[in-house]
C-alpha cells in the first residue's frame, strides 16, 4: 500500500515524512522546525476551506472559535471525520499534531479591525 500505517509507524518517522514532503514540495516556504505543525498554515491550506475565516466563522463546516465541544470530541472528529461532512485526517496528522490543532482552536480570537 502507498499509505503507511501511521498507528504503527514511529512518530519520528511520520514527522520526518511530513518534513520531507514539505521540503521537496516548495522550497520557497520554510519547512516547519522540530516537526511541529504551523497550524495557521494548515488552516489556510486545508481546514479553512470549510471552517471559514481560519475557524472563526461557520462555513461548510461549523465555527470552531468558542466551540462547546471538548478536546476529546475535537480530536476524534479530526482523526475520523464525519461521513459526508468532514474528511478523516488520521492519515495526515499524528496525535501530537492533532493536539497542536486543538490548542490552536482553543486560542482562536476574533480578528482585530
Amino acid at each position: 500500500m502507498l499509505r503507511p500505517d501511521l498507528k504503527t509507524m514511529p512518530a519520528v518517522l511520520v514527522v520526518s515524512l511530513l518534513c520531507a514532503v514539505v521540503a521537496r514540495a516548495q522550497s520557497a516556504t520554510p519547512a516547519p522546525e522540530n516537526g511541529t505543525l504551523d497550524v495557521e498554515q494548515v488552516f489556510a491550506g486545508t481546514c479553512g476551506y470549510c471552517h471559514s475565516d481560519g475557524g472563526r466563522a461557520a462555513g461548510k463546516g461549523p465555527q470552531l472559535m468558542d466551540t462547546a465541544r471538548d478536546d476529546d470530541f475535537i480530536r476524534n472528529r479530526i482523526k475520523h471525520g464525519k461521513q459526508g461532512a468532514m474528511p478523516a485526517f488520521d492519515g495526515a496528522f499524528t496525535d501530537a499534531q492533532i493536539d497542536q490543532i486543538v490548542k490552536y482552536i482553543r486560542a482562536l480570537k476574533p480578528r482585530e479591525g
Partner: protein
Amino acid sequence: MRKQWLNSGLPVLVGATLAASAALAQSVDTARIEAAGQNDWLTYHGSYKSYHYSPLAQINASNVGNLSVAWIHLPGRSTRGLQSMPLAADGVLYYSGSYSRVFALNGATGEVLWSFFPELDETLIARQTHSPYNRGVALGEGKVFVGTMDGRLFGLDAKSGKVLWETRLLDSQKLTVGFTGAPLYAKGSVIIGSQGGEWPGRGPIFAVDAATGKKKWEFLTVAGTDEAMKTWGNDSWRTGGGGGWMPGTYDSETNSVLWGTANPAPLYDWSGADFKTQGARPGDNLYTSSVIALDIDTGKLKSYHQELPHDAWDFDSAVGEFVMLERDGQKYVVHPNKGGFVFVYDRNLGVKNVWKLVENINFVKDIDKTGALIGRRDFAAGKVTDPLCPFIGGGVSWNSGSYSPKTGLYYKIGQEWCMTLDIQKTTPVTSPQAQLNIGADFKMAPPPGGEIYGHLDARDPITGAKKWEVRYPEPPLGSVLSTAGNLVFVPDSRGIIHAYDAETGAELWNHNNGTGHQGGIVSYSVGGKQYIAVAAGFGGMLADEYAPAFGGVYKSMPRDDGALVVFSLK
C-alpha cells in the same frame, strides 16, 4: 405544438413497448448523440451541442399547470445529496447517485430494471473532501459508463448492469482525488477528467476505449506540453492542481474533444502584481482555467484559450457547458467561466466576444472582447481590504444553463456574492496523501451595498443582451432545462421547481420537492408521453454553505438525502 411533436420525431418509437425499446439502447452511438433525437437525453449536456434543451412540446406553456408527479425513485445513501444528470434512451432512464450507484429504470413507471453498486475504498473516501457525490453517467455502444471516487472507470452492460470492464486510471490513494464528473462518450472513446483544482496534482483527462476499457491517452492539464511547462516557475507544476471535473463535449467537424479545465493550486497566490516571477506558482500556469481542444484519437492539444492566465481567485473553466451555435454563417462555442463572464469562441477557440452575466465582479475590472483581463487584482500575503467578488462559489457554478433554438435565448443562473479574504503562504502537502492547498482564510460576504442573491437570465448567447431576469433570494444550484413547449424549468435551492414562460419569464407553475436541488433536469418521452425528471437532494461543497449563510429552510434541510422526481401531465 402537439402535432409538431408527433410528426417530427421517430414515430416508430412512439408507442413501442419497453422490452423492444430497451434492446435499441445498444444503438446509442456518436451519430445519434449528435442528432440529439426527439425522445431521448443521451449525454450529460443533452447532445454534443450542449443545449440542455428538449424538442418535446407535449408539456407546454398552456398546460404546464397540469404537471404532477408521475413517479419517484429513492437511490438511498445520498450523502451530500443527489447531483447527477439523468440520461434517457429508448424509454429507459439511467442515473447515478452518491458512491457511483447506478440505476436503470423504466422511464414511464420508475420500475428498477437493474442497479449497480460498486464496491469502493471507503477508507479512502472518508479522507476525501469533494466526495462521495457523482454527477452522471455516459451511454454508448450498449454500455453505461461511470467513474468512481477511488479513481476507476466502469463499463456496464446497458441491458443488465453487469460489469463488462473496469479500468483504474488514477492513483487516488496518493492523489486523494477521483472522478465525480460524468464521462463523455464519442467516437468509440470514453473521456473523463479527474478532480484537481486545489489538490496538488497535475489534473489528467483520460480517453478509454469504449469497447475494451483500455486507456487510449492521457492529457495533463498542468504542464501537459513543453510550452506549458515553461509557465510554472520553481517547478510548481509538480503540485499545480488543474483537472477537468465536469464533462465537456465533442465537435465532429474538428474531430476534437472540448474540455474546460480547473484552477491552479494554491487557489490564492501571494505573488502580488508580479505573478510572472513571484509567489507560489510564478507564470501563467497553462493549461489551468482554460478551454482546450484535444484530438479525440490521440489526445494531442490542437488549440486552447486560457480564460484566466495565472488564476489567483479560483474562477476556473471546468464549470461551463460548451454551447455550439451557428449565426449568420459563423459557428460559435459559448462557454461560461466561474468568474461570471461568458466567453464566445469560434470553433478553434479563438475569442469572438466576452460578456458579463454577473453584476458583482471585481477580481478584474473587466475582460475585454478579445479576452484580455483588464485591471486584475493580484494579492500579496495578508488581509485583502475590499471583499473579493464573486465568492469562491463563483459567479456561475457547475450547474448547466440551457439554450433554446426556438427562442434563441440562453438561460443561465448567475450568483451575486462576495468574500472576505486573508491571503496566507502555504506549502503543498503531497504525502502520504495529498491535501487541499487553499492559500487563504476566507468567509462569504454580501456584495458591497447589497444583498446576496441569484438570478436566472434569458440572454442572447453571443452578445449577452438581456431579455428578462428572475431573481432568487439564494442562488439556485440546479441545472436549467428549456423545452420546445416554450418553457424554462429551474429547480431552486429551497426545493421549489419553477416553470417559466421561455419568452417572458412569467412563472407558470411550481412544485415543492421537499428538499433543495443541485443536480440535473432532463426531459424525455416514453410511449408518446413526455416526462420531466429532476434530481432533488442538497449538500456538498457549495450547498453546505447555505445553512450558516441563509438559515431558514436550510437549517433543517438534510444533506444526506435525495430522490429522482419525475413529472408528467395529469
